[in-house]
């Protein structure tokens, strides 16, 4: 984005936008609005006021800000929870090194109020959305998928070679907020360990009734039919049948280069599709099997900051519960019963694991595909 687009403010901001008309500039941004000298006017400038929303946004949006500050979007708590659990003892000196690494590399993805309602997120190089005019509804292109890009945006919009867009996008042009309620995005004040716990959460069955719909696959495998007469003993998440190949990332390493700049590097990502046991089986996600996505964490993720900082690395799998956003009605694995049964290639087995993640994934791998059926 050109620098101009990051700093040009629509002149009507102070007329048509409530924030501009009622608040002005320095309430949020600080600085000295009595000076026409650039350096003086910019002294004490706050470039992202909502990075500390309690100062700028709370006076008018108190409830929303309080909820947001407990949300995963704000505190990146999902990543921090996983790192903390892999770290084990959080009271030791090693954990301080992990926190430094986390702040340098992981926490930079957090979203402030302005990251969605005024600008593009800083993780995506920032820049005004509409010349500083506040946007009640964020842009799927410049906000949501600016961060949730390669694993959500590219899959949803079919940008991966040979992969179809999600039918909800292709046929209906559905935007993120049509499934993800504002309460889920802003947060409700409740702190969660990961996004699969957040409430309210979208569920396919909110729109698609799979009970008594005449679909044999649903009768055999859909969780809502678990007590039904045709259920065959293993419930599947919807994505097992309706998702295509998705992106998996491997072996992230972090550090600081010779110029003092933080960096992270990953191996090449891989498009594939793997079914395994549900690692977060619970009342919220009771399915037996799900698709699993590899996250790029490694035992030496923070090796730059110290030795053996993640001694309990194996407490969580590196192949995680996933909900790829590339849903289609027809998929190759759901063409017939034996497109899945007997098809070892689409199941996560020990052969798919790196040596240093075998233990971590014992709870999610299977020995192979279920036996083929006589059609």
């Amino acid at each position: 984005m050109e620098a101009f687009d990051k700093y040009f403010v629509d002149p009507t901001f102070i007329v048509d936008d409530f924030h501009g008309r009622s608040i002005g500039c320095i309430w949020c941004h600080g600085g000295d609005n009595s000076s026409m000298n650039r350096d003086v006017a910019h002294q004490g400038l706050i470039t992202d006021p909502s990075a500390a929303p309690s100062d700028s946004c709370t006076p008018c949006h108190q409830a929303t800000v309080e909820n947001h500050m407990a949300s995963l979007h704000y505190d990146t708590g999902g990543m921090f929870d996983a790192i903390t659990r892999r770290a084990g003892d959080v009271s030791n000196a090693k954990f301080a090194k992990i926190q430094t690494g986390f702040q340098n590399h992981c926490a930079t993805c957090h979203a402030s109020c302005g990251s969605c309602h005024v600008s593009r997120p800083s993780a995506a190089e920032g820049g005004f959305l509409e010349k500083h005019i506040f946007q009640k509804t964020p842009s799927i292109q410049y906000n949501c998928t600016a961060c949730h890009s390669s694993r959500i945006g590219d899959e949803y919009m079919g940008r991966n070679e040979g992969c179809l867009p999600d039918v909800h996008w292709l046929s209906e042009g559905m935007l993120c907020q049509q499934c993800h309620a504002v309460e889920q995005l802003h947060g409700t004040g409740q702190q969660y360990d990961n996004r699969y716990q957040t409430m309210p959460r979208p569920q396919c069955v909110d729109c698609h009734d799979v009970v008594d719909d005449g679909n044999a696959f649903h009768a055999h495998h859909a969780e809502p039919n678990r007590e039904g007469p045709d259920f065959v003993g293993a419930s599947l998440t919807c994505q097992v049948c309706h998702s295509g190949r998705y992106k998996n990332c491997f072996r992230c390493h972090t550090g600081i280069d010779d110029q003092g700049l933080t960096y992270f590097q990953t191996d090449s990502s891989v498009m594939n599709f793997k079914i395994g046991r549900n690692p977060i089986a619970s009342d919220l996600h009771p399915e037996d099997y799900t698709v699993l996505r590899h996250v790029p964490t490694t035992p030496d993720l923070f090796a730059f900051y110290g030795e053996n900082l993640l001694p309990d690395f194996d407490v969580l799998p590196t192949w995680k519960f996933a909900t790829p956003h590339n849903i289609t009605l027809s998929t190759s694995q759901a063409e017939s019963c034996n497109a899945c049964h007997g098809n070892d290639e689409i199941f996560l087995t020990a052969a798919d694991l790196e040596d240093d993640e075998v233990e971590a994934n014992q709870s999610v791998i299977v020995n192979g595909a279920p036996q083929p059926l006589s059609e």
Partner: protein
Amino acid sequence: MAKHKLSLALYLCLLGGLFFLAACENELPILHVYDADGNDLLAMDSGDSCLACHADAEYLQHELEVYPVEEPATSEESAGEG
């Protein structure tokens, strides 16, 4: 003679003042945005001078060319949750 010196001094003061104003004119952006009723919208901003620069496209473009903003350096390979 003294009268002529005083006139010259006044003339020089006047000339200096004009140069000063001209310099200010060049240095400071002068932007007015009027609504349909002829009201100066920037004047409504309680003396806020920020938009005098940030809402003047031509001036801002010029400023950014002369005083480019240094973006935070990074060597990240990629960004976002991915």
